[in-house]
């Protein structure tokens, strides 16, 4: 055991002191931090102001006044305040509390400055083709943004009809979608008001009648109930799966490359004079697992720090970390030992590509199935994937992090299957490892590896 630990310690130290590892880790963390800091600036709308002229042909004669009112800066501000309120309503209570009174202001600010749109009414007999040409004319001060042609029956119903007409919208080339949204929303608002007036209906009263705000659902589980968090239900499984993937890939890839390196350096037989192939394999597996756990620990620690600092830790089930670590160990041992077996069978990295393909596919499958499993964690597919090794670890973890976690016996059955798959993978890898380490020359194919495992 002491020798295994010596090998593990060397693997760990050599890997974490490697310049590319340090740079890779730091760069990754820096990129995440940078993204968190600059993304609000990159993706915000604060600097975007819709400015320009809009022409309208209104055969009803009642839409223009409404649209003028709708495009009024104060009216837009009120509308935005309502949008912010609805948006805040849909986020978790913890976020609302954290945001407090600043949340609404911040959301409004995020929507950017109030647009400066000037409406110009055109006569009914205006030639539409000519009006369209106006859209292509250049005007640096006030760009020509759009032409609205209101339908004749947009405000009053034709006899025998149950559907109102709407409007046609022609826009200038390269019009920003945010400007178009602003125009569309304003026209919609104006049409509703005009229709209400035509029916002598009070808009406020109609709004009050049709308004049933979305309530916060409560997820009821056996012995527990808590507020449903939809966004987290999507984000959490994805984050957990990503962490698992990063951890396994970090260790697995290192195992592959160091084994190939030791074999091509011809240092492997020197090592085998001091330790058995199983001791060597175990030492390397443990050493790289420690490296992966270090990486995982850093990412998990960073994530938890962010959640805690945002007072969102309550949304997270800490047991999920424990299960994630259990599933990580299972998955790491399966993929790590198989990748090491591949490394022992080839002479250089280039030759490993063909043998790595099945392993890469197995690691990509959960990403393909992430959405269906997260959306429907108790479907036949989800249950099947959570018991099918070696992807059962991903599958079960996705289900556990979803809104409807599986019963505990399914979790432990999946862990049991995972542990069994670890034994099978290590058995197979050890057989291939023992033969492959001393084999040079033509790289073997998958069938040869299986033959080695059966003959060793």
């Amino acid at each position: 055991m002491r020798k295994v630990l010596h090998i593990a310690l060397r693997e760990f130290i050599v890997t974490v002191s490697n310049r590319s590892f340090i740079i890779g880790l730091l760069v990754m963390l820096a990129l995440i931090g940078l993204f968190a800091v600059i993304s609000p600036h990159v993706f915000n709308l604060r600097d975007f102001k819709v400015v320009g002229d809009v022409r309208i042909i209104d055969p009803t004669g009642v839409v223009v006044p409404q649209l003028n009112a709708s495009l009024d800066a104060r009216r837009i501000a009120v509308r935005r305040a309502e949008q912010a309120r609805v948006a805040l309503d849909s986020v978790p209570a913890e976020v609302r509390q954290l945001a407090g009174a600043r949340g609404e202001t911040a959301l409004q600010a995020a929507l950017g400055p109030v647009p400066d749109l000037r409406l110009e009414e055109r006569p009914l007999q205006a030639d539409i083709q000519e009006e369209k040409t106006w859209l292509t004319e250049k005007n640096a001060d006030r760009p020509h943004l759009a032409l609205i042609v209101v339908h004749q029956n947009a405000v009053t119903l034709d006899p025998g009809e149950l559907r109102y007409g709407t409007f046609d919208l022609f826009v200038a080339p390269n019009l920003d979608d945010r400007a178009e949204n602003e125009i569309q929303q304003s026209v919609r608002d104006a049409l509703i008001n005009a229709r209400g007036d035509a029916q002598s209906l009070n808009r406020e009263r109609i709004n009050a009648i049709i308004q049933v705000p979305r309530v916060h659902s409560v997820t009821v589980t056996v012995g527990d109930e808590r507020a449903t968090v939809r966004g987290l239900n999507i984000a959490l499984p994805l984050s957990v799966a990503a962490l698992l993937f990063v951890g396994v890939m970090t260790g697995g890839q290192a195992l592959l490359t160091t084994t190939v390196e030791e074999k091509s350096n011809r240092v492997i037989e020197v090592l085998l004079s001091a330790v058995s192939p199983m001791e060597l394999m175990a030492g390397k597996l443990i050493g790289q697992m420690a490296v992966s756990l270090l990486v995982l620990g850093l990412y998990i620690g960073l994530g938890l720090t962010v959640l805690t600092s945002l007072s969102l830790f309550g949304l997270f089930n800490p047991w999920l970390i424990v299960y994630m670590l259990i599933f990580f160990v299972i998955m790491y041992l399966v993929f790590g030992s198989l990748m090491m077996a591949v490394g022992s069978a080839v002479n250089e990295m280039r030759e490993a590509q063909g043998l790595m393909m099945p392993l890469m596919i197995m690691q990509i499958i959960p990403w393909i199935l992430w959405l269906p499993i997260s959306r429907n964690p108790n479907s036949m597919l989800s249950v099947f994937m959570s018991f099918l090794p070696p992807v059962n670890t991903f599958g079960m973890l996705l289900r556990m992090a979803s809104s409807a976690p599986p019963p505990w016996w399914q979790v432990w059955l999946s862990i049991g299957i995972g542990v069994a798959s670890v034994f099978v993978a290590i058995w197979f890898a050890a057989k291939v490892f023992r033969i492959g380490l001393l084999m040079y020359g033509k790289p073997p194919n998958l069938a040869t590896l299986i033959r080695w495992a059966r003959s060793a």
Partner: protein
Amino acid sequence: MEAAILLKGVTKSFGRTKAVDNLDLAIPRGALYGFIGPNGAGKTTSIRMIMSILFPDAGEVSVLGNRSATEAKDRIGYLPEERGLYRKMRVGAFLAYMGRLKGLHETGLHKRVEKSLESVGLGGAGRKRCEELSKGMMQKVQFLAATIHKPDLLILDEPFSGLDPVSSRLLRELVLAEHSRGATILFSTHVMPHAEELCDSVIMMHRGRKVLEERMETIRRQYDPRRIHFEPLDPIADVSSLNALPEVECVARMDESYEILLKEGMEPAQVMRHIVQTVVPARMELARPQLEDVFISLVSAGDKIDDTPEKLRARLTESPAEAPAV
């Protein structure tokens, strides 16, 4: 005395190729054994089985009184034919790592590493990375890695392959030093003069089979010299009188000299005295039996051998890289 290495009926096949066939071997403790034979004879496979890197299909292996080398790895030093170093690792760290894997404790380990480096003229090289060393220096470090723990048994697989004469001499001295310390040494080589210089016993292998296991003295005695190379002082001297000597079988001309073949059982010293009395020599020497000749005579005499002596001699001189992998 208990054997350091004991093999009984060991057989190993790779596919349809029998690499080692029913090998029996007993190497006593403290011996310096040469494992000789052409490339592909089964030497490396045998050594790997002794080291428990490969496992025999049949037969028993016992090393230092244990049922396998796995149980005695800390008492064995092994320098494989295909040997390497961690190129980015520092020399001192590499030797310390190998020492730890061989069961050495931390106490005094670094001092031991420094001392061993000094003993081969590499004092101060401990901080260098392995990739910074010259080939000769690397080979010294590889030898130190195999002996850092002062093993009871040292197994060297083709230790002289690829070495220049200076490095060869140094390695020979290091091997002898280990032997004089009391270590049992087994080394394989396809270059028979190396074995002749170093070993007190040899095992000859051919096509996976042992064709000879004997002490060098016995070989020299058994394959006693029956040839004398003779060059007369007077180039035109009549040497036909030598044919008349009762101990002489025949005399054959070889360029400027002659080869005198003695009758079986004749004492060379006495014959040489008679020759000097018959024709005055400019040079006369006893042709010592070469292991290569012994090997070829043994192998050629085998029942089912299809190699000609010329082919065998060629295989004994080819480098391991040219040899088919076993």
